[in-house]
C-alpha cells in the first residue's frame, strides 16, 4: 500500500495562486473556503529582506492531531495515508479544526453554504451545479482530501498518481512552474523521496510530531 505525499518546491513557486483557485474549481468550494492557500510573508530587514512564499494544504499527517481529537472517528487516516472525513459520522464539534496545527479545516454551515461569488446577485450556474455534483453536508467539517476521488478513480483505471494527470491532485496538475510533486512516500525510489533526500525536504512545524506527508524544499 502506498503512502501518498507531496513535495512543494518553494524555489520554483511564484505565488500565482493557481493551486488555490484550481482546487476551488475542482471541489466547487464556496467563497471563503480554501483547501489550498498561499502564505506570503517577509523576513529580514531592508535591503536584504526576502519574500517568503509557502503554498499550504492539508498535510495528511501520519499522526494527525485532527484524527486524535475527533470524538466520533469521522476523521480517519486511510490505508494510503490520506486523512479523510466520513461526513456521515461528523457531529460538527470542530475539535479537529481546533487541533490542526496547520488550520486546514473548514466548518461547512449555513453561512458557508449561502455565500455567493457575486454577493446579492444569486448563485451562478457553476455554484448551482457544484452543489449537486460535489455536495457537502451541513454542519460538518471539510478539508483537502488530496483529491482522493481522482486517485481512486485513476488507480481503478490503472493510472499512476503523480504521473498521470487523471490520478493526480488538481493542484499538482495546475502548477505552472512544476513546484508540486506527488508520489508514494513508502517507495524509496519515488521522485518525491529523491527530492526529499537530495534537497533536504522539510515538514512544516515538525515539532508538533504529526508527521506531515507534505514536504518543502528550497
Amino acid at each position, binding site marked *: 500500500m502506498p503512502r501518498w505525499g507531496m513535495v512543494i518546491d518553494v524555489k520554483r513557486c511564484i505565488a500565482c495562486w493557481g493551486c488555490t483557485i484550481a482546487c476551488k474549481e475542482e471541489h466547487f468550494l464556496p467563497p471563503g473556503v480554501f483547501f489550498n*492557500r498561499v*502564505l*506570503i*510573508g517577509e*523576513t529580514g530587514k531592508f535591503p536584504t529582506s526576502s519574500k*517568503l512564499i*509557502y503554498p*499550504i494544504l492539508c498535510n495528511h499527517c501520519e499522526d494527525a*492531531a485532527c*484524527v*486524535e*481529537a*475527533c*470524538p*466520533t*472517528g*469521522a476523521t480517519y487516516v486511510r490505508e494510503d495515508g490520506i486523512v479523510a472525513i466520513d461526513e456521515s*459520522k*461528523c*457531529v*460538527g*464539534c*470542530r*475539535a479537529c*479544526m*481546533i*487541533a*490542526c*496545527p*496547520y*488550520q486546514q479545516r473548514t*466548518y461547512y*454551515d449555513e*453561512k458557508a453554504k449561502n455565500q455567493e461569488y457575486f454577493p446579492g446577485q444569486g448563485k451562478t450556474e457553476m455554484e448551482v451545479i457544484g452543489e449537486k455534483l460535489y455536495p457537502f*453536508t*451541513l*454542519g*460538518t*467539517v471539510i478539508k483537502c482530501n488530496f483529491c482522493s476521488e481522482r486517485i481512486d478513480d485513476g488507480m481503478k483505471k490503472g493510472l499512476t498518481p503523480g504521473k498521470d494527470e487523471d490520478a493526480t491532485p488538481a493542484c499538482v496538475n495546475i502548477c505552472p512552474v512544476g513546484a508540486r510533486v506527488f508520489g508514494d512516500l513508502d517507495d524509496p525510489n519515488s521522485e518525491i523521496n529523491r527530492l526529499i533526500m537530495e534537497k533536504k525536504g522539510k515538514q*512544516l*512545524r515538525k515539532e*508538533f*510530531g504529526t508527521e506531515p506527508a507534505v514536504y518543502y524544499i528550497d
Partner: protein
Amino acid sequence: MNDNHQNLVETMFPSDGSGIKPYEWMISPTRQRQWIDDKGVFLWLAFFFSEIGAGMYFMSLFYSFRPGIVIGWLITLVLGGIIHMLYLGNPKRAWRMLMRPNTSELSRGIWIIGVFAVLGFLQIIIPGGFNMVFNFIMGILCLLIISHGFATMNVIRALPAWSSTIVLPLSLISGIWVGQQLLQFVFVLSGNSAMVSGMEVWSATFFLIYFLCIGLYAWGTWHMSDVAKMSIRKMLEGDLKRITLIGVGVLAVLVPLIFTLIMWGGNTNGFLVFLRLASVLAGDLAIRYLIMKTAVYNPLL
C-alpha cells in the same frame, strides 16, 4: 469611493484587535475562532455551565446536601448539555461522540458526563446515597468534569496558551469556587444562615486560591513563549482590554475581594453573598471568554 476603501480596510485590516488580517493568517500568530466566534460562544457557555454545575455538586457532597447535588446535576446536564447540543453541527449524531475515548479527550469527556449522569441520578434517588464510596466516586467524577473543558483545550499542542499545565489549577479552582458560591447562595435562599456563615471560611480560601491561580496563569503564560505571550497581550488590547479590566479586574477579583473582606470571619449577609455570586459568575465567564478568545496558533513560517 471612501466607503469602499473603508470596507476593504475592515476586511483586510480589522481594527478591533480581535480580527485576523487575511494576509497574516498563519504567518503571524493566528487566533483560534471556532471555539468562541459565532456559534462557538455556545461551547464557551456549555463548558462553563457543565463545570460550575459539577463544582456545585462537588461542594454539596461535603454537606450531604441533596438539593445542592440536584441543582448541580441539572446545571451540568441540562444547561451544559443543551448548550452543547446547540453548538454541534449535527446534534442528532451526538451519540457518535462516545466512539473514540481512547484518543479523543472530547470523547472521554462525554463518557465521564454519561457516567456522572447515571451515578448522579442514582445518588439523588437512593436514600443514603451520601456514603463514603459514592461520595468519593462522585467527587472524582465532578473534578474530571470541572477540568474537562480545559483538558480538551490543553491537549492542543498548536495553541501554546492552552497547552501548558498551568491552565489546570485555574480550571479546577474556578469550577470549585464558582460551585461553592452557588451552593452558599442556595443556603442563603434556604434560610440556613449558620451554614452560610460557616461556609465563608471556604469562600475566603477558595477565592484566595482562585486569585493566585489567575495570577499564576497570567505569569506562566507570559513567560512560556513569544506566541503564548501574545495571548496575554491580546487581553490588554482593543475591545478585550475592557473585558479584562472590568470582567477580570473588577468582577472576578476586586468585587469578590471587597465583599469577602466585609464578610470576613463569617460575618455574612445574604444580599452580599448574592452580589458576590453575581460578580463571580460574570467574572469567571469573562476569564474563560478571554482565554478562549486570545488563544493563538503558532505561525507556520
